[in-house]
């Protein structure tokens, strides 16, 4: 779909050194897409891999991707979590085809090379040949070969990985505010409620920017205002880490006043724009701090969401310059009773591919991508709330988007 092949001009031109004007070619340029894979996803960034509870026992593994790169995460015999590329050191074959499973060692189906759970090469079929013919040359040493490793870190029951030795420790990378925001939501042991994947016809960055865009929410998503639900939401704010790429935004809600307001409205029988069944929004203040929405991002591709009592990790996975996949990982916690699980499931209608307040995000990126088709000169504007990427006490702002571009430009060297 892009008009720019790999042989096109190698650099996208930014109109200034700032971060409030973003060239449209960043979303259409195939060479740019390649550089992002190398410098962002394989660069000094931390990427969500899986939940720690998915790796309960030694030998439990998850096969996933970081950017477009296939990766395996596994708990080894000593209980440590290892991650490495899902690629045999011999001929590059995929080692794990299933999304998740349990095994004692990794064995390549192609030529039978085996690796232990730390990724160390342990076995080479016919290493010494057959009847003393063939075999590996005498200088070949198995202990010099292993699966290419990622560093891993765990925070709040979430496992992250990085390809880079230059990436700072995870909590340093996130910064104190975003670390606090992550641990606020992930304060119990998560339980997987389900997962789904939305395939989006747009560059991955259009989705990630959308998540950081606190300006669009009440304009594009009309469900809450149409049904007069969010009338009592209180101002919130945005925290952005120093490098800019990670953020969280939040808004508070007077839960008790919302409930009273609803009961009063029901008495007026003013039904046309009222929900027939209000259980889709009936929420409890489970964190005890009145925060009803907290959207947190970890550069370059993870989102942690609390919308009322829905908790989800979302992972944006680039799949070519004009396509991406968004995986939704819906969570509850081990402390939930049946009423809480049912509450989360009913509120689950708010989010996901069919979510009342999220489905528009699935198509709006595609609309932008279509508009940019052979029409990608110039730059878009992200100057709502100023030109900087600082934390703010209001949400009608594009500061978190500017933060994304700040970190992006630094890592791309642009």
């Amino acid at each position, binding site marked *: 779909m892009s008009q720019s092949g790999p042989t096109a001009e190698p650099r996208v031109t930014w109109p200034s050194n700032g971060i409030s004007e973003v060239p449209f070619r960043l979303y259409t340029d195939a060479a740019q897409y390649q550089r992002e894979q190398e410098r962002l996803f394989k660069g000094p960034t931390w990427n969500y891999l899986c939940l720690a509870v998915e790796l309960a026992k030694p030998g439990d593994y998850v096969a996933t991707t970081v950017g477009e790169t296939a990766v395996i995460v596994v708990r080894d015999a000593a209980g440590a979590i290892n991650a490495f590329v899902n690629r045999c050191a011999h001929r590059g074959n995929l080692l794990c085809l299933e999304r998740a499973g349990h095994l004692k060692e990794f064995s390549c189906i192609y030529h039978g090379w085996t690796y232990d759970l730390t990724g160390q090469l342990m076995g080479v079929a016919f290493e010494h040949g057959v009847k003393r013919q063939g075999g590996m040359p005498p200088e070949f040493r198995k202990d010099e070969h292993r699966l290419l490793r990622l560093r891993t870190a765990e925070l709040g029951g979430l496992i992250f990985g990085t390809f880079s030795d230059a990436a700072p420790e995870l909590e340093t990378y996130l910064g104190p505010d975003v670390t606090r925001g992550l641990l606020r939501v992930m304060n119990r042991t998560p339980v*997987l*409620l*389900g*997962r*789904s*994947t*939305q*395939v*989006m*016809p747009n560059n991955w960055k259009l989705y990630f920017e959308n998540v950081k865009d606190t300006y669009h929410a009440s304009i*594009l998503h*009309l*469900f809450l205002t*149409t*049904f007069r639900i969010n009338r009592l939401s209180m101002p919130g704010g945005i925290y952005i880490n120093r490098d800019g790429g990670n953020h969280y935004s939040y808004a508070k809600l007077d839960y008790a006043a919302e409930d009273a307001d609803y009961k009063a409205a029901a008495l007026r029988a003013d039904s046309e*724009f009222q*929900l*027939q*069944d209000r*259980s*889709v929004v009936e929420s409890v203040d489970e964190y005890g701090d009145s925060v009803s929405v907290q959207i947190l991002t970890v550069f370059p591709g993870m989102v942690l969401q609390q919308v009322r009592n829905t908790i989800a990790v979302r992972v944006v996975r680039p799949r070519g310059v004009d396509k991406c*996949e968004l995986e939704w990982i*819906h969570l509850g916690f081990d402390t939930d009773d049946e009423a809480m*699980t049912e509450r*989360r*499931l*009913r509120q*689950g*209608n708010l989010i*996901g*591919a*069919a979510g*009342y307040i999220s*489905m*528009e995000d*699935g*198509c709006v990126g*595609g609309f932008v991508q279509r508009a940019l088709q052979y029409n990608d000169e110039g730059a878009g504007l992200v100057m709502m709330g100023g030109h900087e990427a600082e934390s703010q006490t209001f949400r009608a702002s594009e500061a978190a988007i500017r933060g994304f571009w700040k970190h992006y430009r630094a890592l791309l060297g642009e």
Partner: protein
Amino acid sequence: MDEVTVRLGIQELIGDYAERIDEDRLEEWPDLFTDPCRYLVISRANFAAGLRQGVMYAASRGMLLDRVFSLRRANIYEPHRYRHIVGPIRLKATEDAAAVVHSNFLAVRIMHDGATTLFASGLYLDRINTSTIPYRFSERIVVLDSEKIDTLLAIPL
């Protein structure tokens, strides 16, 4: 009631369901369910793993109606419609006032500009209340073969 009559009643309900959606008579869609009811759209992978969260869920006729009202009044998406093709209808079990019925479906999505794609395939797992005529779904679980959904899911499947 003899089995042929039951089968005809089931076939009528399942056909009516597809017709109301495909003809954009969504306001009449919740009437095909009992109240309370259970309507769940979930991927095969989640369903097989015993996971409960899908992409759409309703536990009452009111929740089904709210889905329709939201589509009509609040949500923004490109106009499109479906064509449901419902495959063999298998009567798996009958009880005093209920029938357990499985059927296959394909849902073709036709966008406003004519772009036509196979949007979803899967299995309807139904529990049908046969105590009153016409029959009504007390439960319809839409098990999607794929866990991938192209762009968004607006109209119910």
